[in-house]
């Protein structure tokens, strides 16, 4: 048993729902108890879909347990077929139905429906949402995709975008445009908006663009083996990655790498003098493996940040993220326990967090600015406006998104200049930056911290450090948004040297010591 409050990923059948909901003409019959329909609202509310997910639940109850549940399942399959007339059906069990061992696949087969019925084996007690999506899409491809004649023009499939994917909708548009610039058309985009019939035509493309390894890699590997379709390994998030992607695609398609940079603004924005203050900002990265890897490269090479730490919650990506972290000289954090993430962020004290919805809240709690780079996300990260992460516009979107939570150069300069002005005193806080508001501990939170204090707060040396009045006054002159760090650094500096008092001297010695 594992004690959990927050989960980064849902159960695997939610992954299967993400594939079913992304597609058209496909229906999912899910053997599940009453209540599992809660997952519908992820699609109708968070993603704001205007239709019900194409999922029929058997919603068995306690009185049905026994042989009756098997009949319920068969009836549900038949009624769903009659009502929705899908081109194909996927069938499977949720966590509870997995325990009652009704074998949805076998039962569906005996009904003899005139359409392909694809059974899913999703081990709910071992695997999670991303696995569910990846496995479901693999099974759909295995059952439906066949070798077919190639298209006359160079074409590619877009593989991996699903329902409830972070910015999948707009990434598709952006990647389609990148390919079109090189004269390559999209044969099939799947699962997003594809029908089962479209899946049968996957083999007509020259190659696959693997947009999201988490949800499409198994299918890409299978297609490489069975249909002879190579697939791209670079995910085009960020300027450098997009250039590499274009080169990779050109090699696969045998065309010239063409890349229209006229709308690309990140490089100039990042080079302009107002961005100088971004240099060396220490950022912590957390999310799914793909987005974290892409963000690390952007952070270091395109924004001039220092990567202070990185990690991912999906174990499937543990190996590449560990390797990448070594390359960046930091330790990888592979965990799905948000308390571990919070403890790591607290220990590293970064100046910015790039993470998920959860890290946004950790950032709020710790007073650290944060931008969202990965699922799980809430409703505001399924925006109405065009906001891809991939390609040219993706790079522009990322620059804006990451910079907004930070105090920009001119603003930072003015705040420092007027730091003793009454409107800029400590307690006021910048008007629209919640992340910089002085931190107020709630009672439970304070208690929670007090519990954790013994392990977390024990410094290297047990010397009691006292601030002399003059040093304390000097400390107050430091802008409040960096004062916490300055205070902590000075105290560490003093205690490491066995000094029990902090004078103005000590303060500036520490400042010089930590200067970069």
């Amino acid at each position, binding site marked *: 048993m594992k004690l*959990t409050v927050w989960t980064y990923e849902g159960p695997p059948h939610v992954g299967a729902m993400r594939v079913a909901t992304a597609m058209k003409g496909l229906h999912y019959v899910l053997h599940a108890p009453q209540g599992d329909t809660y997952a519908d609202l992820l699609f109708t509310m968070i993603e704001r879909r205007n239709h019900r997910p194409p999922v029929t639940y058997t919603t068995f109850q306690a009185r049905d347990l026994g042989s009756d549940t098997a009949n319920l399942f068969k009836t549900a399959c038949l009624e769903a077929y009659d009502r929705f007339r899908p081109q194909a059906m996927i069938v499977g069990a949720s966590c509870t139905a997995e325990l009652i061992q009704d074998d949805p696949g076998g039962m569906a087969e005996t009904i003899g429906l005139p359409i392909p019925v694809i059974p899913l084996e999703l081990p709910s007690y071992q695997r999670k949402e991303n696995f569910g999506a990846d496995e479901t899409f693999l099974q759909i491809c295995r059952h439906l995709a066949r070798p077919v004649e190639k298209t006359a023009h160079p074409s590619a499939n877009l593989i991996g975008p699903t329902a409830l994917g972070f910015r999948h909708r707009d990434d598709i548009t952006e990647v389609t445009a990148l390919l079109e610039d090189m004269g390559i058309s999209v044969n099939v985009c799947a699962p997003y908006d594809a029908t089962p019939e479209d899946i049968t035509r996957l083999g007509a493309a020259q190659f696959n663009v693997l947009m999201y390894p988490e949800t499409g890699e198994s299918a890409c590997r299978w297609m490489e083996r069975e249909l002879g379709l190579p697939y791209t390994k670079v995910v085009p998030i960020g300027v450098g990655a997009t250039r590499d992607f274009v080169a990779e695609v050109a090699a696969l398609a045998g065309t010239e790498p063409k890349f229209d940079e006229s709308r690309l603004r990140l490089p100039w924005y990042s080079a302009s003098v107002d961005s100088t203050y971004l240099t060396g900002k220490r950022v912590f990265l957390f999310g799914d493996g793909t987005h974290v890897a892409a963000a690390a490269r952007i952070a270091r090479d395109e924004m001039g940040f220092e990567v202070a730490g990185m990690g991912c919650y999906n174990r499937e990506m543990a190996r590449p993220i560990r390797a990448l972290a070594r390359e960046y000289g930091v330790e990888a954090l592979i965990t799905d326990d948000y308390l571990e993430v919070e403890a790591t962020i607290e220990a590293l004290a970064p100046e910015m967090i790039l993470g998920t919805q959860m890290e946004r809240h950790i950032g709020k709690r710790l007073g650290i600015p944060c931008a969202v780079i990965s699922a799980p996300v809430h409703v505001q990260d399924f925006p109405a406006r065009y906001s891809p992460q991939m390609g040219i516009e993706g790079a522009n979107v990322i620059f804006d998104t990451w910079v907004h939570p930070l105090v920009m150069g001119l603003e930072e300069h003015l705040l420092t200049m007027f730091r003793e002005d009454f409107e800029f005193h400590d307690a006021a806080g910048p008007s629209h930056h919640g992340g910089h508001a002085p931190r107020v501990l709630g009672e439970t939170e304070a208690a929670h911290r007090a519990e954790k204090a013994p392990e977390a707060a024990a410094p290297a040396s047990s010397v009691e450090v006292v601030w002399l009045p003059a040093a304390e006054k000097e400390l107050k002159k430091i802008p409040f948004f960096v004062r916490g760090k300055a205070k902590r650094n000075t105290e560490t500096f003093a205690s490491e040297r066995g000094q029990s008092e902090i004078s103005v001297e000590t303060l500036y010695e520490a400042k010089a010591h930590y200067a970069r």
Partner: protein
Amino acid sequence: MNDHSPPTPSRGCLDTPVLKERGQHEVFCGLTSIVWLHRKMQDAFFLVVGSRTCAHLLQSAAGVMIFAEPRFATAILEETDLAGMADAQEELDRVVHELLARRPDIRQLFLVGSCPSEVIKLDLAKAAERLTVAHAPNVRVLNYSGSGIETTFTQGEDACLAAMVPVLPETQARELLLVGALPDVVEEQALGLLEAIGVGPVRVLPAHTKAEEYGVGPNTVFALTQPFLGETHAALIRRGAQHIPAPMPFGEEGTTRFLEAIAAEFGIGADVVARVTEGPRARARAAIAKVSEPLRGKRIFFFPDSQLEIPLARFLTRECGMDAVEVGTPYLTRDILGPDLALLPAGPRISEGQDVDRQLARVRADKPDLTVCGLGLANPLEAEGLATKWAIELVFTPVHFYEQAADLASLFARPLRRRAALRVEAT
């Protein structure tokens, strides 16, 4: 009696045949009720023993609340727990010890059963007994099931309160027990009104903390402020307590009749109630009249969700001038809803249970002006051109008693006002 209330139909919907359906249920399971129950019971912790799905459901239902160190969590069953029973009990002990060490402020721990834990027949009652002994006297450990195979949405609160009734001490005192978790502001208003009428002493179930608990016995009388408390009702009667049947305190009329029924039990006349409540009643009537304008003459359809549907339909038809087309409820407990059914003007279909696709066919044929439904159905129905009011808000928002009567009406009026206000076509 109250002169301003509309004439009461003698039998209302009491004799209306109920359409009973079974099929796909588009409803929450009982675990969802933890989200509001833990706010109410300040020294309680709710530990769900379930799967990742249960944790994911709680996270989806709790929204941003999940980030506020909430007093609930899920012990997620893993492959190894499914192998042998003895092992699972030991694992549960370990998780509970870990949890209570981390949260020394907890006085009551609820082990909440889920579908997976029920199907593998993990004996949580035995675990609760064992853990109560292990953590006595600081922490009392109780258990109940909030699984989808046994409970629908608000029934989770019922199962929780019913689990508390047997452990309340015995008393001979004549006291009123107000049953059902209400928002604090509403609870204070209710207690204030009852005190002014001269009813007392009054206790509430659930109490804020374990320390505030009281006894129950043959002289206890109780009134339900929520309609979904069937099991709790039965458990209290088993302890010898007497139920005061009354309409649910929604709207001006519902609240007045609710108070009158309690007052009568304590030998206090309706004239006293009328005198005490004159101000709030007039306020509620005026406020309802103001906000319910868009509702007059409009047709409403209820999908089943919380069991609040029948009392709400009664309020909306009698006090806001709406016509009910279909009133769906997950369960219809006549012992509790009799007074509301009798007041609901005959006409609507009453349905119990659900076959969601059939019900969707009915709502499309009926084309009501307003449809009350869950979040999984609301946007899809809006996209089809039906105005909707999502039901879960009715459980989280203060809606009971006089001062909230107009807020309740405006929850239904707002979607209609919004549709009238928007000048762009949504596709």
